[in-house]
């Protein structure tokens, strides 16, 4: 499992691995919003948490279809399925690698980008905490979607349609934590629900994704 994680991380940072894609997309979205809405800080501040969350979510979505497609094309997935490693662990380490290469960097750059949107000072820690808690769920749900669509050519559209509804709870509670944090309101309920969604997803999705993958490998 560690070998697979290490290989995926090595592949991601080498040329053509698509490591910077999600980050660049996130940056572009956040930079463009003030241009579109105007530089009025009183208008930007209230929507900043929501925009940052949507940006992070869409950036996550961007690289999902590569998660299994590349291994499927070059035959690695067949070989991994016959390896002593259970398919569930393959999926877990793939999702972890995806999180380390997209979710984690997005979480880290979200705070500096919050400045561009005039996020209220109280909101920064909560934005980072909500992204750190929420993005693992995005990667894990994405792994499930990628496993479902792995055999399809140009499966990206179907993947987005399948995955987006499943992203909604994470988006709602994640953005709620960031917004309430920025407004200085009580946010424990939203925070606990966000963490709950992530835990449930990480616990259940590997099995669902492994079942989907087995069908697609036939």
């Amino acid at each position, binding site marked *: 499992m560690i070998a697979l994680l290490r290989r995926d991380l090595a592949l991601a940072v080498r040329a053509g691995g698509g490591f910077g894609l999600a980050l660049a997309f996130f940056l572009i979205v956040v930079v463009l919003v003030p241009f579109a809405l105007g530089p009025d800080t009183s208008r930007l501040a209230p929507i900043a948490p929501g925009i940052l969350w949507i940006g992070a979510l869409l950036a996550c979505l961007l690289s999902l279809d590569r998660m299994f497609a590349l291994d499927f094309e070059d035959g*690695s997935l*067949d070989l*991994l399925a016959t390896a002593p490693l259970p398919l569930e662990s393959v999926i877990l380490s793939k999702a972890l690698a995806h999180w380390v290469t997209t979710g984690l960097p997005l979480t880290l750059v979200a705070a500096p980008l919050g400045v561009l949107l005039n996020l209220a000072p109280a909101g920064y820690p909560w934005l980072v905490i909500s992204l750190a808690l929420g993005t693992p769920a995005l990667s894990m749900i994405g792994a499930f979607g990628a496993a479902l669509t792995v055999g399809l050519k140009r499966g990206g559209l179907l993947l987005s349609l399948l995955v987006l509804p499943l992203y909604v709870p994470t988006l709602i509670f994640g953005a709620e934590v960031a917004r309430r944090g920025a407004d200085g309101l009580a946010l424990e309920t939203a925070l606990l629900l966000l963490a709950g969604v992530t835990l449930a997803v990480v616990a259940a999705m590997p099995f669902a994704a492994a079942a989907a993958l087995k069908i697609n490998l036939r």
Partner: protein
Amino acid sequence: MLSVENLACARGGLPILEGVSFEVKAGEALILRGPNGIGKTTLLRVLAGLQPALEGRVEGAENLAYAGHADGIKAMLSVTENLEFWSDVFGGTGQVDVAVQAFNLGSLADRRAANLSAGQKRRLGLARLLVTGRPFWLLDEPTVSLDVASVALFGDAVRAHLAGGGAAVMATHIDLGLEARVLDVAPYKAKPRAAADAFDEAFL
């Protein structure tokens, strides 16, 4: 080691082979022959556990290493890195340097797989079998794009594997000079019948 009894398998929901029975003992190799599209690949995938059998029993298909049409090589990793990865996935017991020697990849060890020729890639894919340390090989057209010298290398590797108590089932059209039984799968061609689980397949 492996025993197959009255096996039927399907491709795309349509049965293509039925009533296949054979046994492979340790130290033996079985060569599958038959025209294109008869179901050699499907049979191997069923044996590898990648797809379920329609009916029949497969026993002892454990600890296997499967090599299909695709080599499972990452273009951006070097030859050694590719082999080390598969060795780690299969428990880290395989010896990468032995595999590199066996398939004459020594001069290419640090080369990125993207820069290898088709035959060199195939050699790397076959070297992967050695690092898995698995006793039972399932090989699908292992000699595609290999030159004569490399085919001989592969023949030596299979012979050494069998001598070490391993076993192999392979689908191939060329003569490897192995003392192996040949199973012609053409007589097991399934008679046309309604697709089993047609609804299921259509839904998925």
